[in-house]
């Protein structure tokens, strides 16, 4: 946080107001899916924020609510079956959930843009890639046909598509998976958004292409000082690009911390278990410490802490009392009754030393 000199009081104080409003803040978001088979509590009070130039990774398994949160922010949630029960989506402090449709429309693209996992279905197959990018520039920026075309070529260049001048005339199916993802990134950048939400942008891609795309996203974000929300299930990707992490489980944020701190010592047993269950390129062992059981059904989330049935640390209290998402030293938060103890005992987290792995191999 930057400081300014306060003449009246004669001291340095934290810079007030203008700068402390985050680029985007989600507050206590609650969403349900109402279907014939019951009510699924998809989001149960999700709060996070992201600043300009910052990368927030939202980590979670399928069904954790990470994509639904993003869709609520973008206002592209299918309603019904979804029902937004409450909460706020503050973009520069302005609540988008209560904003008029026209205003939301304006924010979409110019303020916040989104890219998806499946670029092929996100691009319209009957128009050329160039046309689809140029169309946005024409409609939203009022550029002429020629200017828009030029803009589209520049954008394709920006996302490092070789021979952009020729490729601008290609249809989505003529692109490879990696190229399509690049084209979609180009499209999302057309209106110069302040925040980009990337929903599993590399999950469908091969590792070597994934690395290219992640490099591209990181470079673009740095150049433009853009906020980036990276939604993923891949702890490896998170470790390489994120500044902060929010870990989601059963429609809640269970832990939120600086990326280094989180990998050094997680403050929630779920994060800890995820880190320990991961096969790693640079470590070899026979048995992984798997998390027992399954994520809960969202129609029947267990009482108390939703993770307690799978948690090795769970005690009676966890069965009854929903833990607060409370602050911890070092600007981090956790929704575990024993977060303090976890940090103090200095659990190995991302550094499972080889000896403990060797032992678990012997046990089995």
């Amino acid at each position, binding site marked *: 946080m930057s400081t300014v000199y306060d003449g009246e009081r004669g001291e340095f104080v934290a810079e007030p107001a203008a700068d402390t409003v985050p680029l985007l803040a989600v507050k206590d978001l609650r969403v349900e*899916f109402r*279907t*014939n*088979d*019951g009510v*699924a509590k*998809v989001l149960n009070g999700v709060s996070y924020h992201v600043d300009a130039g910052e990368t927030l990774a939202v980590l979670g398994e*399928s*069904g954790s*609510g990470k*994509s*639904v949160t993003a*869709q609520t922010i973008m206002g592209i949630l299918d309603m019904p079956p979804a029902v937004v029960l409450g909460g706020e989506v503050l973009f520069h402090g302005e609540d988008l959930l209560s904003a008029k449709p026209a205003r939301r429309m304006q924010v979409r693209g110019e303020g916040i843009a989104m890219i*998806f*996992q*499946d670029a092929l*279905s996100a691009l319209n197959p009957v128009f050329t890639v160039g046309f689809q990018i140029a169309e946005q520039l024409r409609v939203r920026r009022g550029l002429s046909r020629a200017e828009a075309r030029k803009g589209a070529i520049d954008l394709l260049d920006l996302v490092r598509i070789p021979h952009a001048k020729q490729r601008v005339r290609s249809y989505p199916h003529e692109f490879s*998976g990696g190229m399509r993802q690049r084209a979609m990134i180009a499209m999302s950048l057309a209106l110069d958004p302040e925040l980009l939400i990337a*929903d*599993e942008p590399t*999950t*469908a*891609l*091969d590792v070597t292409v994934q690395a290219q795309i992640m490099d591209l996203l990181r470079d673009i974000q740095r150049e433009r000082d853009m906020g980036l929300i990276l939604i993923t*299930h891949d702890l490896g990707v998170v470790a390489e690009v994120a500044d902060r992490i929010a870990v989601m489980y059963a429609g809640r944020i269970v832990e939120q911390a600086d990326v280094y701190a989180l990998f050094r010592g997680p403050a929630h047993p779920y994060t800890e278990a995820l880190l320990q269950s991961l096969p790693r390129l640079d470590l070899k062992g026979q048995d992984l410490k798997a998390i027992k059981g399954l*994520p*809960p*059904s*969202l*129609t*029947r989330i267990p009482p108390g802490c939703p993770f307690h049935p799978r948690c090795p640390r769970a005690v009676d209290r966890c069965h009854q009392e929903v833990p607060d998402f409370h602050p911890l030293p070092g600007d981090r938060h956790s929704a575990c009754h024993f977060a303090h103890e976890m940090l103090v005992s200095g659990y190995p987290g991302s550094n499972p030393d080889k000896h403990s792995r060797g032992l678990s191999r012997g046990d089995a």
Partner: protein
Amino acid sequence: MTDPGSVGGGGPALESFASAEVADLATTQSDERQRKPRSLWGDAWHQLRRKPMFAISAVIILVVVLMAAFPSLFTARPADYNNLDFASQPPSASAWFGYSFQGYDIWARAVHGARATLLVGFFATLLTVLIGSVMGIIAGFYGRLTDAFISRFGDVFAGLPFVLGAIVILTTFNPPGSEPSGTAVLIQVILSISVLSWPVSMRIMRSATIVAKQLDYVKAARALGASTRRIIFRHMLPNTVAPVLVYATIALGAFIAVEATLAYLGIGVRPPVVSWGVMINDGKDYVQTSPHELLFPAGLVTITVLAFVMLGDAVRDALDPKSR
């Protein structure tokens, strides 16, 4: 270009962005159901029962089927009950649909006519689906030349305009002046409908089979050494029959209308056999003087066809897990 090497070898097959969460919802919903296991057909039935559209169409179809099976439940008069004294009388308490120009009780005749109409609809559908499905499975399963041959052969029939084709077939069998027996004409009508419409169900079955052949569980069964018969009957048919079933339901309605068309043209079922089509044919000349003679049988055809189409819609929705 397709690259068989990439099949299944690509990136993680996580569902696309939104469906990942939706799919998980589906699994969580199925957790819910774990206490009372149900099959997919059971689920479909459960789904059907709650649809008003299904209830309405089922009731209509049930009534028509009862008429065909037990006409005496609906009328005491025989089909050829005839009293020229009442010719062209409008509907009354004694004859709900009135009398025809020739003095027939239209209600009684319609009740008895349901049988021929339904027989044509039912057997034409059965035959169409049987021929089409067998051809479709063979074409889809063996592929290559077999597929090319069957598909082009089917195109020949599908290419013929339906009514024109039926006229050609039926007049060839019964040249003007011939007096075929009622049963013979019934069978000819059924056959000509089936011959002209099997390509549709063949195409449906063929594409379902091609999809099913690529499914992982069919691969797994082949890897276990399962015979062709086992693969087709145990793994493919139960999963490919749904779209054909939907088609069959809608086709049944359509074939009832076709029966009426052919009878109206005078080349289909004809007296002494009574069908709704025959009645429409009878009534067509007296629209001006006694419109009820045409309107009632035509209305019956319309309502029945509608009922089958609605049923087909409901069945399709119920069998499609995505629509739930």
